[in-house]
């Protein structure tokens, strides 16, 4: 199971590299969304692995709220580019 988790963490490095390399703000937003989802899924996986439902509930909340925050941020940046 640890090897699967390490593979997931390595997959997390791909959008991180993309966010570091690319200077386009929308590409970075995409990378942010990708990382936010991936971290939540990793947390959910660890929660199931440890049979710890407290972390599981938190990861589900973060999975939903993180997307809402991302949409808010995207809206603000869109308004910024228009003016």
């Amino acid at each position, binding site marked *: 199971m*640890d090897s699967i*988790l*390490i593979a997931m*963490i390595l997959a*997390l*490095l791909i959008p*991180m590299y993309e*966010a*570091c390399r690319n*200077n386009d*703000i929308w590409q*970075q*937003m995409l*990378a*942010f969304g990708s*990382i*936010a989802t991936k*971290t939540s899924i*990793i*947390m959910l996986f*660890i*929660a199931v692995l440890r049979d*710890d439902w*407290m*972390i599981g*509930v*938190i*990861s589900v*909340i*973060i999975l939903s*709220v*993180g997307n*809402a*925050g*991302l949409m*808010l*941020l995207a809206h*603000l*940046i869109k308004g*910024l580019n228009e*003016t």
Partner: protein
Amino acid sequence: MTDNYVYIIVALLPITALMSVLQVNPYNALIIRGILGAVSVMIYAVLGAADVALTEALVGTMLGVALYVIAVRSSFVMRLGIVEPKLEPEPKLELELALAIKQRKIRESEELHENFSFIRQTLFRDFEIEPKTYLPEVIDGIRKIVKKHYLRLELVKYPNSEMLEEALACEEVHAICTRQENHSNGSTVLSDRISVRVHRLFEILQSQLNIPDSIIEYKAGSNKEEKH
């Protein structure tokens, strides 16, 4: 708790922190701050602090970044004062006058035409029509330069040049752009004069703005402390 993957997850935090520090553009740095928040949420949750993770996700990642974007957006701005070109007299009124002339069918009457111009003068005497007092190229040039420094250019319009000067003195705007006539060698040359109140902006504009017939000058404000 001594699983090996915990060390790998914790190692992600300094990587994202370094990415955030190395970013130059403030908006991109804020997005990297969001990534840093997501990674730290994962670390807190993996280490067993579910409440801290939830707080970091709600406050640190969502609310903090959104508020910082609004703050950066409203503060990274250069306010440039210009004189708004005067409004032309309403064409509707002129049309009505012309229609009145037509309806009376006194087309050849020069007298009425004189009256017409007299009415126009008296009606719109207050609206003295000034020439266009700024060049779009100058504004575009300034906008391009300040964009390199992640600033926004906000145009503040004033009805006349006295109010423009007063706005610069009262520190309402960071710079003003006026057009003036120079009489040299018998010919009139129009030149744009940009007066900047903030010294750093003056340095930036002086080194990078190369538009012919434009003068950039630095006018220190009433108090020596620079406000951005």
